[in-house]
């Protein structure tokens, strides 16, 4: 293990955004359904809980439906995260992939100002989860929003797969 601290002298020089694109939609489609011969766009505009950014395709090969591929956007801290969900013919999630995020993640540690929430609190002090201290669910906002998005897409899938 080797490490060193680099203290930046010019704070303004450091890049503030650590965005990354991992996959294009086409790459994610092929990765999710390698056997698919085509991805036919599905009209989801009337599905319940639909969002303007949600897109859906049916993965097909040899006249059969292999499953469905969804593209959606979730909010991270302040910017969107593009992600995809592949659902198989049996209705189970095959994969969830982040396609792109536009703000700092990982490699970044943000030290927020310490508020009064826990300083001085003892185990004997009653702490009401929602009232006293901000909701600590054990998950980051990004993770929760993507996970909630996946649940929403599963519901949308149910309504379109029935057609």
């Amino acid at each position, binding site marked *: *293990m*080797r490490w060193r601290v680099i203290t*930046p002298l010019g704070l303004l020089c450091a890049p503030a955004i650590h965005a990354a694109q991992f996959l294009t939609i086409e790459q994610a489609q092929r990765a999710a359904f390698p056997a698919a011969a085509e991805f036919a766009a599905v009209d989801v505009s009337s599905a319940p809980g639909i969002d303007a950014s949600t897109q859906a395709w049916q993965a097909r090969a040899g006249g059969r439906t292999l499953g469905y591929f969804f593209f959606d956007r979730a909010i991270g801290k302040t910017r969107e995260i593009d992600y995809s969900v592949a659902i198989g013919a049996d209705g189970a999630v095959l994969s969830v992939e982040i396609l792109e995020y536009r703000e700092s993640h990982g*490699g970044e540690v943000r030290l*927020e*100002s*310490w508020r009064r929430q826990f*300083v001085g609190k003892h185990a004997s002090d009653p702490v*009401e989860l929602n009232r006293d201290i901000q909701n600590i669910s054990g998950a980051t906002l990004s993770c929760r929003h993507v996970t909630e998005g996946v649940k929403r897409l599963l519901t949308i899938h149910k309504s379109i797969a029935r057609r």
Partner: protein
Amino acid sequence: MIRRARPLLGTLVEIRADGASALGAIEDAFDEIAWVHRTMSFHERDSDVARINRALPGARVDVDAGTAELLALALEIANASDGLFDPTIAPVLVDAGLLPRPVRPRHDAADWRDIELVAPCTVRLRRALWIDLGGIAKGYAVDRAVESLQRSLVARGCVNAGGDLRVFGDLPETVHVRRADGTLARMIELADGAIATSAPFERDDRVDTNAEAPHVDGRTRRFVAEPRAVSVLAPRAAVADALTKVVLADPEKAAPVLARYGASSLIHEGIAPA
């Protein structure tokens, strides 16, 4: 360099791998992480952790080899830190409403010394207790993923679970530590090792920080009174994670424990309480 990210461990986990076998290797590495998530979860009914937390004193609980390995490490660090790190502080978090209450009541005075590994994959409790492997399990997941990549003959890569990261193969990784206003506090360049950072923070809608519970001092069983922002660098991520708790509880007493594990700590000064 192939990069992929997925929502796991309550954060977005990013894996980077270089080489011909990278795509398949990354898939296998994500599987390892998902496995740790399921097996060590405090919340899932059938996880090894939940089964231990339901166990009657004296009963033998068979666990996965990975769980046993992680528990053995947790107990080793608890012993080395004289209890400053203690995986049995879950009751403090439960009583504070930060973790759901397990079904079985726990003994008030139980601590890490009441956990025995009576066989390679068998746990026995002397007294009823609740373990929470939260942070250390995240580091362990990172380690498992790295080892999986290496078994797949990936020459260099990085696994990053919301700031707990490990990089290998002579690929330096730069960690940016920022203040609340977005300015850079410092940058840490790391190669062939792991870093875990515990920072006091407030959750609000603008912040996407990994929401660990606030830190409990293993010996006083109270929330750490003087919250600091601390990073620990160590060869393994699980160790780095556990040692952040030791440093947060008592930076002075932590020094020999850090030395024993070939670890170093950085306290990020100048992050003033609001």
